[in-house]
């Protein structure tokens, strides 16, 4: 269901969302755009994957949400990373680095 130019690995979406929220709170569109920006447009997260992921992560306690005003005075729901989410980001980052290292060396091997 992850509609993106590159299919998202399971769990990658969570990591990207956490990363996107690392600096500031964002609304759904903002998160989507920020992910596109930080991955140089490789990943484009569609609402069909984004919203379930946001709600799931909120349930897990990694994110908290509040209503606020978006750029053009529109009401939007903003997400913010919680302490728990920050710890999760650290853990997932470490995990991801291990995987990517392993993958890279695996692919280099002849």
């Amino acid at each position, binding site marked *: 269901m992850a509609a993106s130019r590159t299919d998202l690995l399971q769990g990658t979406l969570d990591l990207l969302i956490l990363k996107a929220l690392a600096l500031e709170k964002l609304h759904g569109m903002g998160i989507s755009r920020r992910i596109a920006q930080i991955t140089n447009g490789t990943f484009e997260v569609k*609402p069909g994957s984004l919203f379930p992921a946001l709600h799931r992560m909120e349930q897990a*306690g990694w994110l908290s949400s509040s209503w606020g005003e*978006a750029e053009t005075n529109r009401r939007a729901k903003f997400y913010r990373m919680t302490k728990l989410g920050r710890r999760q980001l650290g853990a997932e980052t470490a995990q991801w680095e291990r995987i990517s290292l392993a993958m890279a060396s695996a692919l280099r091997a002849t």
Partner: protein
Amino acid sequence: MSFRRCYNFCRNLFRKQRADRDLDQEIRGYLELLAEEKAQSGMGRDEALRQARRELGGVEQIKENVRDVRGGVSMDNLLQDVRYGLRVLRRNPGFAATAVLTLALGIGSTTAIFSVVDAIVFKPLPFPNAGRLVRIRSVIAASGDGGVASYPDFLDWRARTRAFDAMAVSRTDGFNLIGPREPLHLQGAVVSAQLFSMLGAMPALGRGFLPAEDQPAAAGGADPVILSYGLWQRQFGSDASVLGRTIRLGDGPFTIVGVMPPAFQYPIQAEPVELWTTVAVDARGGADAVTTQRGAHYLDVAGALKRGVTLRQAQAELAAIAGALNQEHPENKARSVRVVPEIQGIVGPIGTPLLVLLGAVGCVLLIACVNVANLLLARATGRRKEMAVRAALGAGRGRAVRQLFTESVSLGLLGGALGLALAVASLRLLVRLIPAEVPRLNSIGLDGRLLAFALLVSLAAGILFGLAPALRVSKIGVTASLKESGRGAGSGGKERSRTRDALVVSEVALAVVLLLASGLLIRSFQHLTQADPGFDRQNVLTLQLDSPAGKPDSQVPAFFRDAVAQIGALPGVRSASAVASLPLTGESLRSSIELEGQPTPMASRPSAAFNAIEPNYFRTLGIALVAGRDFTEHDGTNSTPVAIVNRALAQRFFPNQNPIGRHVRPGISGPGEPPMREIVGVVGDVKQAGPGAAAAPEVYAPLAQIRISPMFIVVRTANDPQSIVAPARRQIASLDKTTPIYHVETLDRYFAQSVAVPRFVTLLLSGFAGLALLLASVGIYGVISYIAVQRTHEIGIRMALGAQRGAVLRMVVGKGMLPALAGLAIGIAGALRLTPLLSSLLYGVNPTDPLTFAAASLMLMGVALVACYIPARHAAKLDPMRSLRYE
């Protein structure tokens, strides 16, 4: 984390609407932002919105996905399914009513029987130590018969055991309370002092017994007595100062030391126990006392296991102790010990019939479930298109199955609610059918356990009968269903009809088992009531009397003789006499006997029933005098000791000889060594132990030479025996005002009581068999009508092609009779294995009685045939043109 999930779940559940609104706004906000972004890049406003919508995708789908990750969603789906299910039921009131009513009958009867079985068998005993209480039965090793123990054996068990915290004896007895008012006969119990502490029961007032009180009080002293709450209220005006007061019970003075709380009962039995005293009353008489005789088996023994000790361990330990006792006391040789849960000792012989009934009613419930499964299956076929459409619209298979289960469980719960109402309404009637001797009836009623049971059964039933259609749906492919275009005889038809056949087979098989069981019980009951008890039970009044308190033993026979003479002289009395043990009650005395010329050590003497009678007893009850003479008033203390034996004894001990003039020595006697008694007569066998028991050897001796009390006065009347009650009471009061008269009954009533348990079981089981037969025939009828309707088109073609009505009829009937026959065969095979379980309830009928099996099979086939024939004839009568057009 789990707290958070819980919190979210609840929040989502209760604030579902708000959560949904939030989500809606959130997504709309996203859409607007997206559109704005596009508009900023120079797109027209409408175009931007259109593009944004396309990029967003299916809003509803997103929402559904979000809801799926949110807790509480399954609850929401469930409610949706229930609402939908109820709507479907409302749309098909006929279907719903049939299903709910069928289930209500099944669940209702199951719940009603469960409430009875639960109250009598399953509910824990009302003692703090209930779980550890056991009954210790002293039995004859070879046969397992017996159950009561002797006091010396009990003392040795208690002294040597390590598995028990405590052990106590008990026996019930009648006590005559002689006070200022008229004498009162009370049911009492003689118990070990330790009993109350063993049960964990505390008196409401005063104290329990002290260990030393198992010994008789010093000469002139009073033994202790504890009153029941009810007796204390009724006879002593709830006066707390009764403690320490001395009352007269029969011959002796007793000091009231305590009053038990209202709910306390022990032993637990139908007739409430009103007072308790200690075994001291049996220990009076020093070296001759019954408590010193190892051969006198007359006490029930209960024990409380130590914590952590199992029944098996206790059994092993006591068996070893009993073995050692057998070595030490040769007269004990043949005895062994069985430890059973106390509840089993209390429930007694009604336990098996109750469990049989519970099994039977479970079968009825299964048949009801099968019927509803059939109904659902038929309807599922009609709904296949609906299901296919839902599947095509994206409903997962799991969701569809869940929907079906929700519907069937809802049906189950509806049926269960109605069934529970039926059960509660029928409880009072049911209780009235239960024999009066059954204990613990007072706790039958609607309570939490019953509600829980009904709920559980309803849920289980719902799942059970929902299984067939749900499995079906899970197999159906969407495209296949849609292509099938709703016509009955499609590709899935074969498999479906196999399921239906299997259902018919199973319900017929269940009905056969029930029909056979009830057939056997009915035949057995006929045998039981028609069996010759050996006496004429019409127009005989019986009443029980003690000899008046304080009368010396030697005057006991004279008192009863006077009573018989006075009552015998009343107008309307044909004949009167007295007897120690009435027939059919099973309460006869047993005595060892020794035969003339065959000196035998005590331990190996045979035993026989023993009875003391006044002259004219045989004439009064219409018992045949086969040879010799009856006792006369001349058979007294100073004349030759005499005896009359029954035919069974004569045949067993004097085969092919004339017993008249020979001698036997029964162990029970008047004062002094038991004498050899000359046999002066032989009488016909009387069913002493009950109508179903085989006649056992019995010895009668004249009361004048025995001196037993209490005695039954038996009176044969010309007309209604009840008309003699009042004059008879007056006559006895004129003899003595202090002796109460009790157990005033007719022999007919005793007979009714003696067959009450078989009557109850037979009645209920026949009712259930009838219900099973009805449900099974309705089931067969339903399946056949359904098949007939489904195949209307095919039948029309066949007839248009020249098939005769008869052939069509045969074809449709055959469709139904084939599974019915298979069910019959399976049912008979099952019954052959199951009916032997009934053998303890059967009298005069073999558990595999061919006549019963044949009759039940014929009956079932007849009913099945009718159930098939009616819809088949309907199908065959159809006009071929109309059936061809039928869709």
